[in-house]
């Protein structure tokens, strides 16, 4: 018995076509019936957000942050990763003045790296945290950067690398300022700072001044000259290391000039 295949074609098309139409109808109905009302402002804000979902603002992602911004729970400058232009646009959209907001970047407050002598040849696991457990640090300075790259592994955006000088270098175009590297660093040699903000950093080693002089070109030796010369009285010595009170500091730069060790810099 032979079957004429061509004769089967019209009914097949009819059946599948009808099925398709019925399903399409159901989808149309479902999209109307289960439609979720969204605030157009939130959608517009989401368009402007960087979409990094880094979590630095404290919310799970950019969408959640946008919702809370529109609801008024938080100001948009909590975002660390928007640049100045984006902040302007967000300000226009929401009708508020956030021109003071700036993007944040991590800053290395150690200038050791290859400038700092090694105490011993380290052969072992490539993590700073495990290396510290072994015997303090492999560097002569126990407060400096070890350079085994815990910060590099913590970064979700490939924005940090260990440069040739043995110190972390931040690739600004990738960085979202989320601060994951700052949390990961066991030596606390990274700190988060505003992009254009004048920050004075002290290369702090709590070792004795004489020892610091031997091992490091930059480290603060706690001589206290900056404390005496500061017109605002913003500097005090904590554990033989100068600490700058950022609120009192008026960025005059006197301390940078007087420091005999170049331990204070403007970033």
């Amino acid at each position, binding site marked *: 018995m032979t079957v004429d295949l061509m004769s089967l074609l019209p009914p097949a098309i009819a059946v599948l076509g009808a099925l398709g139409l019925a399903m399409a109808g159901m989808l149309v109905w479902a999209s109307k019936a289960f439609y979720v009302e969204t605030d157009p402002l939130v959608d517009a804000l989401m368009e402007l957000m960087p979409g990094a979902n880094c979590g630095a603002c404290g919310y799970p992602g950019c969408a959640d942050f946008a919702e809370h911004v529109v609801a008024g729970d938080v100001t948009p400058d909590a975002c660390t990763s928007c640049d100045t232009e984006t902040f302007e646009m967000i300000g226009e959209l929401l009708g508020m003045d956030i021109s003071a907001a700036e993007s944040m970047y991590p800053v290395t407050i150690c200038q050791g790296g290859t400038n700092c002598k090694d105490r011993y040849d380290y052969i072992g696991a490539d993590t700073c945290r*495990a290396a510290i*457990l072994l015997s303090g640090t492999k560097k002569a300075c126990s407060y400096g950067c070890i350079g085994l790259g815990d910060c590099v592994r913590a970064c979700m955006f490939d924005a940090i690398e260990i440069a040739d000088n043995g110190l972390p270098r931040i690739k600004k175009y990738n960085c979202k300022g989320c601060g994951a590297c700052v949390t990961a660093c066991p030596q606390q040699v990274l700190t988060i700072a505003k992009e254009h903000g004048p920050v004075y950093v002290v290369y702090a080693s709590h070792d004795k001044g004489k020892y610091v002089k031997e091992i490091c070109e930059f480290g603060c030796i706690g001589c206290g000259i900056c404390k005496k010369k500061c017109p605002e009285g913003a500097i005090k010595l904590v554990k033989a290391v100068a600490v700058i009170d950022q609120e009192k500091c008026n960025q005059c730069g006197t301390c940078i000039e007087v420091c005999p060790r170049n331990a204070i810099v403007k970033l």
Partner: protein
Amino acid sequence: MKIVTIKTFDQVIIPLQQHDGAVCDSLVSVGDIVSVGQLIGDGEFRIHSSVSGEVTAVSELPHPTGKDVLSVVIKTHDGEKSEIESVELSTGKIRRIIREAGIVEPNGQPTLRTKEDIDTIVVNGTNTWDLSSHEALMLDHPSKIVYGLKALMETVGAKKAFIIIELGSEALHVMRTETIPDSNIKVIATPRYYPPGTENTLAKKFARKKVPRGSTPEDRGVIVSSIAAMKAIYDALRDGEPMIKKVVTVAGAVGSPRDVLVDIGAPISHVIKECGGYSGTPVKIIVNGAIPGAAQYSDEVPVIKTTTGILVQTECDIEREPPAPCINCAWCVDECPIGLMPHLLYGYADSAQFDKCAGLYIGDCVECGMCAYVCPSKLPIVQIIRYGKHGVAEMEASE
């Protein structure tokens, strides 16, 4: 005599942490004059001065474990040997004397931990970690070791004792001869293998007492001790001498490798100099044996109570290969004497998943180093497991 006594160095560094546990409190200050056997540190354990002299510093100094530990530096005076009183013996007193003499087992634990009824004593006389200080002690002082063992047995009321010695060791014959009159002390020969055993495995193998996870052999009525502790008990009981000297094996690239009797606190550089100095350029100095030991970054670290040996390696002894990724070959699992899974522990600890490490009993690891030794990828497994243990401890502390 196999053991050579090394003359006192003109300056000793006595760390106030020579055991597992917290750093002891210093009882002396700079300028104090101390004499041999004087108590200088008290806490979980007692620490005594090994020389007579003047305290020149009490500060944080390098320690064989790698950390800087509060240490007492004593500049030795000539002559002036203090009198050490010998004591009368009674069983009640022995327990106190053992504590007061500050005796520490090579693994950093005390010899007597509990006051439970003890039935058996296992004395580990194998050449722990490839070093021969135990054998040398047994050859030189067999009667003192048996005396110490008997005193310990009497104190805790143990009925029998085993001395474990490797097959083919000269000490086997000597110790068998020495223990003929004592029917309750047995000398057992065991094949040479590494690692010779942990407290729990030795208790299971020789005393036939299985020690469940989380408990010590003492809970099952077994004390696992070592030859060095037996000798220290003898010294404490008969001569009233606290643990201020230690037999240490010096091996590797030195002029004349041998077993030496060293004052606690003598710097390693001095010990090596007395053994003929370095032959060739030293590249690695490893304390406590090649596989489990820790490489030192300075030869100024002192000999402490847990030190059993010093190994000096030159460039040709060392093979350096960069680590490759784990291939899950499970050689480490085959070799682990405890029955852990080091490759999983490595992975979890490396990625900071400490809850999973705890679930795989990371705390049971004895850091014998076999996993890292056999690893074809040359991964620093022990170091990462140590990091994992630290992470688990931190996690538990924060809960």
